C-alpha cells in the first residue's frame, strides 16, 4: 500500500463509487450531454468513449464541477458519506469529495519545478496542517512535519511515474510524455477517491502508451481508487478498462465490458457510419 492510498477502509459491500443520473448539459439549443446515466465502480477503470463532439469532455467538466449540469444529479459515494457533486464548487469537489482530474491539453504549473507542482497539489492538507500558513510562518514543528510528509508523498509519486531524477527541473521544460505522467502524479497527490483522466494517451508513442497502461493499472490495483477516463486510443481502452460507456451526440448508446462493446452494432454504427454488413471495427 502506498501513502497515497485511502485512509479509511472501504465498506465490505462495494456499491458504485460514482453515480451519474439523468444528467443533461445544454449550450444554447445544443444538448452536449443528454439524459445520461451510468455509474463507475471503485477499483475499476471506467472508460468513456465516443466520436468527436460526443460530449465526453463536457461530461467530465460536469463531474469535476467546471460546468454545472442543468438537469440530473451526480453522486460520489465517499467512504465517509455521499456527496452531490453538482452542488459543490469545482475546488470543493477536488478538496472535499476527492475527485482529481487531468486535462486534455496538459495544465502544469510550467514555471514551477516538478516537485513544487506536487506540493501545490497537497495544498488543502498543508493549509490545514499549517493553520493557513501561520504555523509555517512561525516555523512550528507541526508544519515542518506536515511538509515532510508531503515531500514523502511527492517522492513516492515521482518514483511511480519515473520522474525522480527530474524533481528539481522546471515542469514546463519536460518532454511531452513526462508532462503527461507528471500531471497524473499531481492529481494523485491530492489523495483522490476518483481519478478522472481526459485523454491521457493523447500524443504518446506506443511505448509510452504501454507504460501508461501499466501505471493506470497499478493505480487501480495498488491504490484502490476508481478511474474514469476519456480515451480515443482503442488499444488503451480495450487493454485496460473494466467497463466502457459509449457516447454519441450526448447520449449513451452502449455500456458494458470492452469485449461486448467491440461487437455492439450501435457502437460500430457510431464510429464507422452505417455499414452494409456487421463489421468489427479494427482496433
Amino acid at each position, binding site marked *: 500500500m502506498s501513502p497515497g492510498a485511502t485512509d479509511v477502509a472501504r465498506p465490505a459491500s462495494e456499491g458504485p463509487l460514482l453515480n451519474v443520473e439523468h444528467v443533461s448539459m445544454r449550450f444554447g439549443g445544443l444538448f452536449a450531454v443528454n439524459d445520461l446515466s451510468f455509474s463507475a465502480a471503485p477499483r475499476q477503470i471506467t472508460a468513456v468513449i465516443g466520436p468527436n463532439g460526443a460530449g465526453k469532455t463536457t461530461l467530465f467538466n460536469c463531474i469535476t464541477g467546471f460546468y454545472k449540469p442543468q438537469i440530473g444529479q451526480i453522486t460520489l459515494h465517499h467512504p465517509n458519506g455521499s456527496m452531490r457533486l453538482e452542488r459543490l464548487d*469545482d*475546488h470543493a469537489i477536488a478538496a472535499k469529495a476527492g475527485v482529481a482530474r487531468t486535462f486534455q491539453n496538459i495544465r*502544469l504549473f510550467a514555471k514551477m519545478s516538478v516537485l513544487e507542482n506536487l506540493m501545490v497539489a497537497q495544498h488543502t492538507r498543508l493549509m490545514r496542517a499549517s493553520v493557513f500558513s501561520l504555523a509555517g510562518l512561525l516555523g512550528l514543528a507541526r508544519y515542518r512535519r506536515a511538509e515532510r510528509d508531503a*515531500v514523502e508523498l511527492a517522492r513516492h509519486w515521482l518514483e511511480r511515474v519515473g520522474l525522480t531524477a527530474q524533481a528539481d527541473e522546471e515542469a514546463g521544460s519536460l518532454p511531452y510524455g513526462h508532462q503527461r505522467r507528471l500531471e497524473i502524479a499531481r492529481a494523485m497527490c491530492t489523495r483522490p477517491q476518483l481519478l478522472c483522466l481526459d485523454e491521457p494517451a493523447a500524443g504518446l508513442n506506443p511505448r509510452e502508451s504501454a507504460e501508461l497502461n501499466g501505471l493506470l493499472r497499478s493505480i487501480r490495483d495498488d491504490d484502490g481508487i476508481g478511474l474514469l477516463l476519456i480515451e480515443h486510443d482503442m488499444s488503451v481502452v480495450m487493454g485496460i478498462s473494466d467497463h466502457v460507456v459509449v457516447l454519441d451526440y450526448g447520449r449513451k448508446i452502449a455500456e458494458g465490458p470492452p469485449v461486448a462493446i467491440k461487437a455492439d452494432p450501435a457502437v460500430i454504427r457510431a464510429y464507422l457510419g452505417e455499414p452494409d454488413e456487421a463489421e468489427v471495427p479494427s482496433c
Partner: protein
Amino acid sequence: MARRAVIDAALAGLVAAALAFPMLGFRLVDSATGLSLATRFDLVLWAAGLVALGRLGLGLLRASTIGISLSLPALPNIRRPVGWVLAVAALALPLMPFADRNLMDKATLVLIYIMLGWGLNIVVGLAGLLDLGFVAFYAVGAYAYALLSQNFGLSFWVCLPLAGILAAGFGVALGFPVLRLRGDYLAIVTLGFGEIIRVILQNWQDVTGGPAGISGIERPSFFGLSFKASAPEGQQTFAEFFGLDYSTDHRVIFLYFLILILALLTNLFTLRIRRLPVGRAWEALREDEIACRSLGINPTLVKLSAFALGAMFAGFAGSFFATRQGFISPESFTFIESAVILAIVVLGGMGSQIGIVLAALLLVGLPEWFRDLAQYRMLAFGGAMVLIMLWKPSGLLSAREPTIRLGERA
C-alpha cells in the same frame, strides 16, 4: 540586406520626423507683447536625421556577421551572498564618512520604493495579478496614520499596525469585485480604484483636508524619546537621554533605520511565505488558475490573501511616509507612483527580491542623483528603460529558484 536597412532607416526617420514635428517644431514664446509661436524645423530635421542614422547603423550591424550579443552570461547562484552584502551595506551606510544628510534622505526614499516594490511583488510577481492602483494602499496607510494621530493622538507605533490592517482591509475590498478578472481587465479596474481613492482624498474636505492635505503630522519617537530640539515638561529628547549634542541628523538616521527594518521585514516575510502553502498557491495561480481549481485550491481565498498582504506592506510604507514627511496631500499618491512601483517590479524581474532592489536603485536612486542633468533626466530615464528591456526583456533577475528541492543544491 543593405537595401532593407536603408528603407528601414528611412521609415524610422519619417516616424521620428512625424513625432518631432509637433513636439520640437513649434514653441510658445512668452514675449513682452504676449504669446507667439516660434518654429524650429531645423531641430525636427536633426532629430529625424539622427534616428535614421542610428537605425541604419543598427540594421547594418544586424546584417553583418559579427553581431553583438546583448545577453549577459548566465549568473551563477550568487543571489544569496549578494543579498547579504546589500543588507550589510545598507546597515553600515549611515556610519560611512560620505553619508551626509542628503545621501541619507535619498537612501530613505529608495528604501520606501524598495519596500513598496516588495509589497507589490506579492500581488504582481507571485500571484500574477496586474495591479495598477497599488499607490491607493500606500495612501490609505499614510492617511490612516495622519488621521489617527491627529484626531485620537495615537502614537506612530500604535498606528503602524492599524494602518497595515486598514490597508489590508482596502486590499480585500478591492479584491472582491475583481476576483473574476485577469490581466488587462484587472489592470483597468485597479487603475480606477487607485484614482477613486485619490479623488476621495482630494474631495472629502472635512476629513482629509482636501487638496491642502494634512500638515503637522506627529514625528516618530525612539521609545518615547522625541527627536525635537527640546522636549515638553517631564520628558526627555533623544539627544538629552544619550548625552549627545542636538542634531537634526539623528532623526534622519533614525528614519533611515526604521524604513530599513520595515523593508527587511517585508523581504523576510516574502521569502518565507514563498515556501509555504499560500505562497506556492500564489505562484500556481499565476501559472494556471484552472489547474489550481482542479487541485482543490480556492482561488478566491488565494487572490484575496495576495491583495490583502501586498496592501498591508504598502500601508506600513504609507504610514512611514507620512511620519517622515510630516505633511501629506493627494498630490503624493498619483498614478505615476503606481507606475513607478510597477516598473520596479517588472524591471527587477517578476518575483525576484534582489531584482527589485536593483530596479529601485536604478529607477528612483539614479534620477535623484542625476538631478544636475535637469531636463534631460527623464530622457536618460526613458533611454535606460529601453536599454534594459532590450538587454533583459524579462527583467534584471528573472531566473526563478524553486522553493523546495528534492536533490542537493545544484
